[in-house]
């Protein structure tokens, strides 16, 4: 049946391997946390790793890779677009740093 179409998806062995890989990434994240990086750089690295992890999970665990490409192209760009637009919040958040009332 088409419902379970991604028949060619990976088997349990590969899932276990991916699982170990994901745990390794988490391990790296924790490791980096204690490397006393500046918080900007730490954030950058953590975000990169989080996106890698999420990408792997979405593609393999959620089988997005084995669906028709149309599904991927409908969902992922929409999400990334919204995330990109929300970045317009930052100029104001950062502005708080120098417009904040300290003792006026």
């Amino acid at each position, binding site marked *: 049946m088409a419902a379970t179409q991604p028949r060619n998806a990976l088997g349990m062995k590969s899932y276990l391997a991916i699982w170990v890989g994901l745990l390794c990434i988490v391990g790296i994240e924790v490791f980096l946390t204690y490397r006393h990086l500046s918080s900007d750089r730490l954030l950058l690295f953590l975000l990169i790793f989080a996106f890698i992890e999420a990408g792997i999970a979405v593609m393999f665990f959620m089988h997005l890779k084995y669906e028709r490409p149309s599904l991927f192209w409908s969902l992922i760009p929409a999400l990334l677009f919204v995330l990109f637009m929300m970045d317009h*919040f930052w100029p104001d958040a950062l502005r708080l740093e120098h417009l904040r009332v300290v003792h006026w």
Partner: protein
Amino acid sequence: MSESEGVMAGHEALREESPYGIQHKKLGIWLFILSDAVTFASILFAYGYVRVGSTDWTTPFAFSPTIVNGMVMTFVLLASSVTMLGALEAAKNENPSRCLAWLGVTVLLGTLFAVLHIREWLRMIGEGWRLFQNPVGGPALFGATFFSITGLHLGHVIAGIVAILVVAIKYHRRRTDESHVETVGLYWHFVDVVWMFVFPLVYLMNAK
């Protein structure tokens, strides 16, 4: 209009094919996941916003117990994703008892995650953390963001456990098929994916 015009007689191919070639409920759950992802994104952005806007943000999480606990939770939740995949695999191979077993393990792992999480909450509440209170002297918003983000996620986990249970019971009674297992599985993996952002952003970024 006459019956012969534009009316389908037989049963073959009554519909235009879906552009994705998947069942409605799978498309539905994907759409739900998309919108839920935006919900989590906005709340994480809000967290980032108030954090950037605060000068005296505190980073109170000690390696032990908080971060270790978080790592265990991550381990458990990721494992539950794999067991969920096991359930789907079994369902596809028409092995209902194995599928149910895997679903059971998934529920157990999910519950373990929730228990670990609630235990941690209780510990923090015991230390004086509240939505509006920061016992270590930083901004009260720390508690607000922590509890609201992890609370939203915990809510999703609990909803997921309930959903898996419902599917498992119905599956046991042969009222659902593998496609329901797949659908609830997608949701469950999504909860896992969200955690992949919550753990670094809420825990690691606040590690001592």
